[in-house]
């Protein structure tokens, strides 16, 4: 009986640990499930390319809560394996939804841009780097999004260093153009255009 008690306690502790420090495959299952739910909820609030929170069946509050939960979970996934692209990919794609539906502030934009840069640097350094162009797409997008936020709310941050970052991201975006398809390509071209305009303003 004493052995059984010990085994139960050990098993409970193991399961508790898995909730926060689970290896990638366990986390991936949870990310997968939540990711499907968030996408479905976002689709419930969309008409084509437009976000329409007043649509019947759309629940913006739950969408926001689940989006933030998924973003936090994907950070755990990156911590579990910061070389693989999947954690970054899901995190950054969900961040696109987050910035459309939730509060937009400087620190959230800064963080998204830094994570996109980390994804890009990791892919560039990796011998496989199979998601390098996806990483370029996110880097270009989030640098442009953060740059436009700075333009509207913190213009004093647009300095020479920032200009060089804009030009760097713009250049990487241009490299990615032949490898990005569909509506993503449209957004990529828009971000490239924005970065050029922002650099021209400094």
């Amino acid at each position, binding site marked *: 009986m004493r052995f059984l008690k010990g085994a139960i306690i050990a098993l409970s502790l193991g399961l508790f640990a898995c909730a926060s420090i689970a290896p990638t495959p366990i986390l991936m299952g949870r990310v997968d499930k939540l990711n499907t739910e968030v996408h479905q909820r976002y689709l419930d609030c969309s008409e084509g390319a437009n976000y329409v929170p007043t649509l019947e069946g759309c629940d913006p509050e739950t969408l926001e809560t689940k989006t933030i939960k998924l973003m936090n979970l994907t950070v755990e996934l990156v911590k579990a394996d*910061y070389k693989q692209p999947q954690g970054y990919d899901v995190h950054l794609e969900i961040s696109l939804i987050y*910035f459309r539906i939730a509060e937009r502030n400087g620190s959230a934009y800064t963080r998204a841009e830094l994570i996109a840069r980390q994804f890009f640097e990791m892919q560039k350094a990796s011998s496989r780097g199979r998601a390098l162009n996806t990483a370029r797409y996110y880097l270009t997008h989030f640098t442009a999004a953060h740059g436009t936020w700075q333009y509207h709310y913190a213009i004093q941050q647009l300095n020479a260093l920032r200009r060089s970052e804009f030009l760097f991201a713009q250049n990487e975006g241009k490299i990615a153009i032949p490898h990005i398809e569909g509506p993503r390509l449209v957004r990529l071209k828009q971000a490239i255009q924005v970065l050029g305009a922002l650099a021209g303003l400094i």
Partner: protein
Amino acid sequence: MPASILVRIRQALSSIWRRLKLIDWIGAVFAIIKAAKKETLDVDEKYIVIKPRILSDENYLRGVSALKVALTFVPFPGAQIAGPVLALGEVGFKLWKRISLSREYDQLEFPPVDPNMLRFFVQLDPELAKHYGHLTTPENWGEDAMQELEPVFNDLSFLTNFEMLRAKYPHFDHDYLKDRAAENLATLQTSLDAIEQALLQVSQSPETNANIRGAFESLKGLFPAMNDWALFNSEGFDEVIDIIDTIL
């Protein structure tokens, strides 16, 4: 403590000591260090904002590798079996991980436009600024302005048909709308070319190549009549891609 137990303990310790003396300690240390060595990527630390945790997958596997090597040096019964068992676990973990990571995650058909980029775009574009610039001023900017501007911006980003754009936005300059429609069409055709090329790269016969080219030629012919990028969301397009995938 009875003397017999003390004798037994001494004999056991002596046996362990004899076995330990057989180990090539220098070789073992080097082999363990080699197995546990961290595989580093050439990335400047300043770019790492999400740091790997101590119990990362990489560290789990490094620990298992080091333990596996260490066990091969241990001259006790059971250790020789533990090595291969750990190796099985390592392979199993990698396989399990590979399967769980194999899905593609770019599920958003239309990535949402970023509101700050949208606002900047309207200010940047003289034609948009002329009609909607007032919505982007600090006093007017907000959720309502976004709701009003987003459909306009997305129409101008995705519609490929000038007539449709003109019908929806008769107050816009016609040459501007023509340019937008032409640019959107060109981007759409480029995307289709990219998909065609990707399929041709994995095609293995001239016959399949011809089928792919024929299918895409027909699809491209449809575009001047297409009103928007609905094609990318349509079941028909998915079916075409599925058929092509099947014959490859």
